[in-house]
C-alpha cells in the first residue's frame, strides 16, 4: 500500500495513504479531542472539535475527515486551533444544562472532558452566549433508555450507530437550526417507535443525553469495576463488561452492561437481552437457600442437611434399583465446567449414561446428521465468514430475533451486496431484506431441499471435482432426488417451482455460498434427514471448507455447544468419544480413579426416553440442573404427570419454576454473574465467564454443588477451584486439549475447538483439507410429511418459535422488568384469511387445542404468516404452547417435532378485566 509521510507537531510520521490526520496524530500519541468521531463509525466531521492547522490550507481542517497528504505540515495545538476549539465548546455549553454535579455521565462525559481540557466554563449571566436553552421534556416512556435531548450535542453518533451497527435506522436528525434534534421515527417517544432497545445509541453517546435508566444513581464511574464476561443468553457468544458497584450492605451489585470493542464476536454491538436483561440477577425471587419439600411444603434447609438427605436417598435408590434408575438433565445454560462435572457424576458416581439436556430439543438432529455426513456436528464456519460470503440460505431461523447480534453480520452482508434466500413459513424481518423468501408450508423442508439438489444435478451444477475427491456415496443422493423436481416440490411446499430453481442455482453458482439453519429444520420427525439434505447441498456444490461457505447450525443457548462437547449426552464422553468404546472407558476410568467396570458401556437414554422411563418406573430419580422441561418439552401435561411419578427429583436452579415445583429438593445455583468458567458459542469459540459479584444468598456454582454431592456419595472429585476442572477437561478431551483458563486469560478472542495442544491456535473453520470423518458422505433421504397433518377436527398447523425480548421458558427474561414490560404477554399469529373464516378479530382471545392439550391467549392477525398456519412462542407459561406440541420423535436423533402439530382455534371471551398491552414491541 502507498505510504505517505507528513509532519505533525514537528514529528515526521509515515502512514498508509487514506489515513486520516486524526489517526496519524493518534499513532504518534498526540491527543486530538473529538466529539462526533468514533473509530467504529463513519466520520462526518461535523463537530469541528478536532480541527488542526495545516500549512497552506485556507481554513482549519477537521482531522477526523482530512486524509493525509505527502509533505503535509500539521499543528494540532496552534493558538488559532485552541481558540477555535474553545469557541466550539463555549457554543455547546451555551445550550447545555448546567447540571454536571448530578449528571449521571459526570466523569465519562466527553463534553465535560473537553471543557476541562480547554478551561471553558458555562457562560456567565449577561454574556452574549447566555441565550435561549431547550426545555424539552425527557423521554422516560420506555423501561430501558432515558433520552434527555436537552443534553444532546447533535454529534450524530447515535444516528450512525443505529444505522451502521444495528441496521435499524430508528434515529435521524429532525427539524432545523436551533430546533434541530435527534428524533426516533417521526419524533415520537421511544416506546412508540420502531426501536428494539439494543442500546447502541447509549454506547456511543458522549454526554448524558442517553442513559441506562436502571443504572441511574447507582454509583459514579470511578466507583464501578468492570468485569469482562460472556453473555448468558443465546449462542452467539457476545462478550461485554459487567459494571459492578457497591450496593446495599456493601455487597457488590451488577449496575450496568458495558459493551467493549474487544469482544471478539460482537464488538460493541449487543441485543436488548444482553444489554439490559440483567434484572434477574438480583431479583427477589432468586433462590437463596436449599429447599426441601416436607408434607407438600417447601422448607428452607442448610446445605449440609440438603446434601445429606440427597445422598441418603440416592444411595438407597442405587442399592435398590441400580445405576440406570438414575437420570440426569444437564444444562445448556451452565458452564462447560458445570456440565463436565455433572456428566462425571452421572457416569462415575451413578454409573449410568442416562444424561442428556435440552440440545435434544434443538440440535440433536444436527449433531446426528452432520456427524454422519461430515464427521462433526458443529457449525463449520465462523460468524465472521459472513463478511466474505456471496450467497447465503437461511432456513428455519428467525435470526434477527433468536440470534440478534449474529443477524447483524447477515444484514451487513446483504448491505455489502451478498444475496440471500430465506426459507420460512413466516415473513420474518430477514425475509423482507433478502432477495428471496420461500414461504413454505411448515414441515415440508425436506421436499424443498431435495428439489434444490435435483436442480443442481439436473442443471449440471454439481462440483464434479469436489464430489470426486472429497465425497462418497453420490449415487445415493442422485437416486433419491431424481424425481424431486421443483414442480413436485411446489405441490408439497407451496413455493413456486421457478423460485426453487432460481435459488438452487444461485447457491450452486455463488463463488462462496453458505447455509445457516436452526430449529425450523431440526425440530421435525425427519430432523436428521433434513440436516443430511442440507449437507448434501453443500457436498454437491463444494460450498464447504472455504471462507464464506459451510453448513452452519446456529446453536440456541449460550452454552449448548459446550454442554454437548462436555458429554452431557447419553452416547458420548466429552469431545464426542463414544461411551461404547472400551479404550475411551479405560481412559476416563483412569482419569477419575475408578474401576473401568463401574462405567457403563451401554448408551444411555435421551431426554424424552428418560421421561418415558420415569413413566414406566425404570428411572426412579432425576437430577435436573438449570432446565425447565415442563415448559420447554413437548406435551407438557405428560411431562408434569411423569415428573410426579418419580420417586425423588433434585433440581438445581436460580428460581422456582414450573419444573422445580415438582422436585423434592431444590438447590440454589449461581447465575453467570456469580461464577467463573467457560461457555462455548455456536462457532465453537470457548470464552471466559468471570465472577463479577458474590453469590446471591447461599447460592453456589453448579460445579461446586455437584462436587459436594459426589463427595457425599463417597466419591470426592477433589476440585477446589474451577480452573482445575478445565485442566481435567483438556486432559481427557482431545479437541479441548490446548484450552485452559490460564491461556484464555491471555487470549481475549477465545479459542475455537478443535484446539488439541497448548500451542495450537484453534480451528475457526472446519473441513478445509479433509472432512472430520475423512470423506463427506451423501445420504439419500426421502421426504416424509410431518407426523401430524391438519384434518377436519384440527385444521390448522401450529408452529412455535422465539421472540426478541424473551428467552426460552422466560425464567430469566420475564424477571427483568424492562423486558417484561416491552413484551408482556404472548399472542397467536394467524393469517387474515384464516381469521376471517373463523370469525375472529385482531385482539380477540382464542382457545387453541391439539390432541394433547389446549391454551388460551390473544390473537394477532398478520399477513406475515402463511395461511393455514398459526404461530406462537414458548416463553410464557400462561400460554403454555408445549401442552399442545407433538412429542413424536425423529427416530435417529430422538428430537421431538416441536415445529408442527395440528390444532383447532376458536374464539373465547377475554379474561375479565383484560386490557391489550398498548406498547408491546412486535417484530413480525
Amino acid at each position, binding site marked *: 500500500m502507498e505510504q505517505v509521510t507528513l509532519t505533525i507537531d514537528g514529528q515526521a510520521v509515515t502512514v498508509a495513504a487514506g489515513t486520516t490526520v486524526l489517526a496519524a496524530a493518534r499513532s504518534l500519541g498526540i491527543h486530538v479531542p473529538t466529539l462526533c468521531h468514533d473509530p467504529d463509525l463513519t466520520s462526518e466531521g461535523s463537530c469541528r472539535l478536532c480541527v488542526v492547522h495545516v500549512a497552506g490550507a485556507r481554513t482549519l481542517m477537521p482531522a477526523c475527515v482530512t486524509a493525509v497528504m505527502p509533505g503535509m505540515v500539521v499543528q494540532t495545538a496552534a493558538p488559532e486551533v485552541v481558540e477555535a476549539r474553545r469557541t466550539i465548546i463555549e457554543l455547546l455549553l451555551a445550550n447545555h444544562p448546567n447540571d454536571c454535579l448530578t449528571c449521571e455521565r459526570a466523569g465519562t462525559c466527553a463534553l465535560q472532558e473537553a471543557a476541562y481540557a480547554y478551561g471553558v466554563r458555562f457562560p456567565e449571566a449577561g454574556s452574549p452566549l447566555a441565550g435561549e436553552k431547550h426545555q424539552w421534556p425527557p423521554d422516560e416512556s420506555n423501561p430501558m433508555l432515558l433520552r434527555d435531548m436537552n443534553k444532546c450535542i447533535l454529534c450524530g453518533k447515535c444516528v450512525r450507530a443505529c444505522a451502521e451497527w444495528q441496521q435499524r*435506522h*430508528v*434515529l*435521524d436528525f429532525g427539524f432545523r437550526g436551533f430546533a434541530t434534534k435527534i*428524533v426516533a*421515527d417521526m*419524533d415520537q417517544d421511544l416506546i412508540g417507535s420502531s426501536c428494539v432497545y439494543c442500546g447502541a445509541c447509549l454506547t456511543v453517546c458522549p454526554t448524558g443525553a442517553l442513559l441506562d435508566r436502571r443504572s441511574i444513581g447507582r454509583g459514579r464511574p470511578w466507583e464501578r469495576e468492570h468485569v469482562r464476561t460472556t453473555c448468558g443468553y443465546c449462542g452467539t457468544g457476545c462478550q461485554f463488561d459487567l459494571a459492578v458497584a457497591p450496593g446495599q450492605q456493601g455487597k457488590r451489585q451488577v449496575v450496568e452492561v458495558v459493551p467493549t470493542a474487544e469482544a471478539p464476536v460482537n464488538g460493541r454491538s449487543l441485543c436488548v437481552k444482553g444489554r439490559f436483561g440483567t434484572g434477574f440477577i438480583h431479583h427477589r425471587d432468586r433462590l437463596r437457600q436449599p429447599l426441601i419439600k416436607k408434607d407438600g411444603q417447601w422448607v428452607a434447609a442448610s446445605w449440609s442437611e440438603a446434601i445429606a438427605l440427597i445422598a441418603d436417598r440416592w444411595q438407597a435408590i442405587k442399592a435398590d434399583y441400580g445405576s440406570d434408575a438414575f437420570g440426569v438433565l444437564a444444562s445448556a445454560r451452565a458452564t462447560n465446567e458445570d456440565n463436565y462435572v455433572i456428566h462425571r457424576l452421572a457416569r462415575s458416581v451413578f454409573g449410568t449414561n442416562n444424561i442428556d439436556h435440552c440440545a435434544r430439543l434443538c440440535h440433536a438432529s444436527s449433531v446426528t446428521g452432520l456427524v454422519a455426513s461430515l464427521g462433526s456436528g458443529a457449525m463449520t464456519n465462523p460468524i465472521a465468514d459472513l463478511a466474505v460470503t456471496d450467497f447465503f440460505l437461511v432456513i428455519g431461523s428467525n435470526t434477527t430475533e433468536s440470534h440478534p447480534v449474529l443477524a447483524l453480520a447477515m444484514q451487513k452482508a446483504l448491505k455489502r451486496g451478498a444475496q440471500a434466500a430465506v426459507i420460512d413459513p413466516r415473513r420474518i424481518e430477514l425475509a423482507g431484506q433478502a432477495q428471496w423468501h420461500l414461504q413454505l408450508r411448515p414441515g415440508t423442508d425436506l421436499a424443498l431441499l431435495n428439489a434444490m439438489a435435483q436442480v443442481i444435478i439436473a442443471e449440471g451444477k454439481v462440483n464434479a471435482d469436489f464430489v470426486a475427491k472429497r465425497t462418497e456415496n453420490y449415487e445415493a443422493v442422485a437416486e433419491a432426488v431424481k424425481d424431486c423436481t421443483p414442480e413436485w416440490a411446489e405441490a408439497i411446499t407451496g413455493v413456486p417451482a421457478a423460485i426453487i430453481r432460481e435459488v438452487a442455482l444461485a447457491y450452486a453458482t455463488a463463488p462462496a455460498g453458505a447455509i445457516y439453519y436452526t430449529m425450523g429444520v431440526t425440530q421435525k420427525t425427519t430432523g436428521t434427514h433434513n440436516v443430511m439434505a442440507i449437507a448434501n447441498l453443500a457436498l454437491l456444490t463444494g460450498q464447504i471448507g472455504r471462507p464464506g461457505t459451510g453448513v452452519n447450525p446456529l446453536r440456541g443457548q449460550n452454552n449448548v455447544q459446550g454442554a454437548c462437547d462436555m458429554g452431557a449426552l447419553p452416547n458420548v464422553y466429552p469431545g464426542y468419544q463414544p461411551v461404547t468404546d472400551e479404550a475411551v472407558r479405560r481412559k476416563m476410568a483412569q482419569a477419575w480413579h475408578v474401576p473401568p467396570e463401574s462405567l457403563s458401556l451401554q448408551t444411555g437414554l435421551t431426554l424424552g426416553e428418560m421421561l418415558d422411563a420415569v413413566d414406566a418406573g425404570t428411572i426412579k430419580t432425576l437430577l435436573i440442573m438449570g432446565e425447565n422441561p415442563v415448559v420447554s418439552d413437548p406435551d407438557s401435561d405428560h411431562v408434569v404427570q411423569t415428573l410426579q411419578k418419580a420417586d425423588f427429583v433434585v433440581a438445581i436452579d436460580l428460581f422456582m419454576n414450573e419444573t422445580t415445583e415438582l422436585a423434592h429438593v431444590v438447590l440454589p445455583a449461581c447465575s453467570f454473574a456469580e461464577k467463573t468458567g467457560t461457555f462455548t458459542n455456536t462457532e465453537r469459540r470457548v470464552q471466559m465467564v468471570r465472577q463479577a459479584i458474590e453469590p446471591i444468598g447461599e447460592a453456589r456454582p453448579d460445579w461446586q454443588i455437584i462436587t459436594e454431592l459426589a463427595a457425599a456419595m463417597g466419591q470426592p472429585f477433589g476440585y477446589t477451584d474451577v480452573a482445575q476442572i478445565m485442566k481435567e477437561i483438556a486432559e481427557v478431551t482431545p479437541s479441548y486439549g490446548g484450552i485452559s483458563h490460564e491461556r484464555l486469560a491471555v487470549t481475549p478472542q477465545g479459542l475455537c475447538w478443535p484446539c488439541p495442544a497448548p500451542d495450537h491456535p484453534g480451528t475457526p473453520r472446519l473441513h478445509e483439507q479433509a472432512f472430520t470423518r475423512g470423506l463427506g458422505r451423501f445420504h439419500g433421504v426421502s421426504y416424509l410429511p410431518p407426523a401430524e397433518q391438519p384434518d377436519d377436527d384440527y385444521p390448522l398447523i401450529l408452529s412455535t418459535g422465539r421472540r426478541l425480548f424473551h428467552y426460552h421458558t422466560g425464567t430469566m427474561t420475564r424477571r427483568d422488568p424492562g423486558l417484561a414490560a416491552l413484551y408482556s404477554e404472548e399472542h397467536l399469529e394467524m393469517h387474515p384469511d384464516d381469521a376471517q373464516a373463523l370469525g375472529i378479530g385482531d385482539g380477540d382471545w382464542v382457545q387453541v387445542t391439539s390432541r394433547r392439550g389446549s391454551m388460551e391467549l390473544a390473537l394477532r392477525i398478520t399477513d406475515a404468516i402463511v395461511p393455514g398456519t398459526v404461530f406462537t412462542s414458548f416463553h410464557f407459561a400462561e400460554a403454555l404452547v408445549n401442552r399442545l406440541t407433538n412429542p413424536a420423535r425423529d427416530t435417529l436423533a430422538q428430537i421431538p417435532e416441536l415445529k408442527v402439530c395440528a390444532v383447532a382455534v376458536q374464539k373465547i371471551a377475554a379474561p375479565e378485566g383484560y386490557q391489550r398491552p398498548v406498547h408491546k414491541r412486535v417484530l413480525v
Partner: protein
Amino acid sequence: MNCNCGGTAESTKDAALATMLAEYREKPGALIPVLQGAQAIYGYLPETVLAQIAAALHLPLSHVFGVVTFYTQFHLQPRGRHIIRVCLGTACHVRGGAAIFTALQQHLDVNDGETTEDQRFTLESVACIGACGLAPVITINDDTFGRLTPEQLPEILARYA
C-alpha cells in the same frame, strides 16, 4: 385514512399517491419530488402517508421525517385555504411589522405556523418578502398588501372566504 370528510375523495387521493409511488419506486433520490407530489395530493403530509412513502422508497421513516421537518415547504399539519405570510425582515421590523403580526395573531387566534380551526387561514412569519419599499408588508396567497396598519387587516381578511 384518518379523515371522515368524504370517503370517495380520500380514496382518490390514496389512488393518486399509489400511482406516484409506483412511478418513483425504483428511482434513487426521489424523496423530495415524492414529498412534494404527496403534499400536492393531500395538501399536507399526514404521518400515514410518510410511512407509506418510507416503505415504498425503502427509506427509514426517521430519514423521511428528517427531510420533511428540515424544509419549510413541507407541512405535517393540514394547512389553511389561505396562507398569510407576514414579513418580519429588517425594513418591515423598523416600520412596525411586529404590530401587524401581533394583530393578526390576536385576530385569528393562532400562533406562528398555525392554522385557524375553520381551516381558513394559516399564519406564518417570514424573514423577507423582497418588497421592502412597501414595508410593513404581508402576502395572502399570491396577493401583496403593503404600507399596512393594523386597522386595515379585518377588511383585507374579509376578502378571503
